[in-house]
């Protein structure tokens, strides 16, 4: 059992970057990722008092994905708000130095676009595995499904991506 961070600042410092990368890859844009990170930290702050020692990261990832899914459902109830996985919301924010003479096209853009076309449960499984680096067991714990389901979602997610990227 690993030591539990005592304050949400510690959580933020140690895990913030991971949460942001998860949020960015799941939503595809910095603004939504920004909001998601803040929501997660808010919930962590509220929940730390009641946290039961166990797997801290598992708990953290449950909070993170619940925050994400809550936002998805919230937007689904308001049809005027585009869903996070609609492409016109996606905005590859890049800042280029004006001195560099030519445009740089990020190869990651195509992959990010394709990720956003995956069903949410496949997308999060692939992101937790390939971006965050969790093991199947850790993902199963975070997502509260059996390991076999994790394996299936990751594989089907990758197969869909393969079709989208060629």
């Amino acid at each position, binding site marked *: 059992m690993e030591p539990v961070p005592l304050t949400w600042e510690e959580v933020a*410092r140690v895990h*913030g970057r991971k949460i*942001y990368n998860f949020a960015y890859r799941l939503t595809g844009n910095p603004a939504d990722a920004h909001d998601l990170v803040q929501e997660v930290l808010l919930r962590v702050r509220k929940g730390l008092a009641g946290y039961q020692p166990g797997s801290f990261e598992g708990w953290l990832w449950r909070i993170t994905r619940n925050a994400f899914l809550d936002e998805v459902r919230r937007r689904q109830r308001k049809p005027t708000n585009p869903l996070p996985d609609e492409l016109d919301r996606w905005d590859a924010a890049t800042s280029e130095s004006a001195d560099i003479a030519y445009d740089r096209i990020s190869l990651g853009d195509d992959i990010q676009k394709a990720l956003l076309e995956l069903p949410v449960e496949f997308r999060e499984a692939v992101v937790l595995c390939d971006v965050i680096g969790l093991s199947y067991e850790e993902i199963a714990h975070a997502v509260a499904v059996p390991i076999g389901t994790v394996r299936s979602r990751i*594989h089907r997610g990758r197969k869909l991506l393969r079709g989208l*990227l060629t």
Partner: protein
Amino acid sequence: MRHLSESISAYLDGELRGVERGDFVAHIGSCGRCARDLEEIQAVRTAIRSLPVLDLPHGLIPAADGEDVPLHRHRGLWVGAAAAILAIVVAIAALVTPAPATLTLDDLNSRFGARASLDPAFGPAKVFAPGVQGLSE
């Protein structure tokens, strides 16, 4: 094997163990279609794992600004190039296949060194030091 195709991802992620792994490897050896699937899935997996790790936007988490906690335990092929990285920026007209966002010297050197070492006669004259640039300072 009924679930073989899903085992492909698990194999690439190091999640197959023992007998299941042995059976899978044996199956790949005799199933051309599964072997092709494996290659395709590996390409996708590598492409996603090559996505850049994003830095926290400054000010989002003030407590975390300036922190550099490693994100991905499998990040990158060759861990440890801590020296300042010189990058060549290239305009790419069209992306045909998923490609890594950045190649490292070791990607190139390892392929050359491995191919050069295929000839065992001159083998010892062709080996190289993986991951070492040999800077004398």
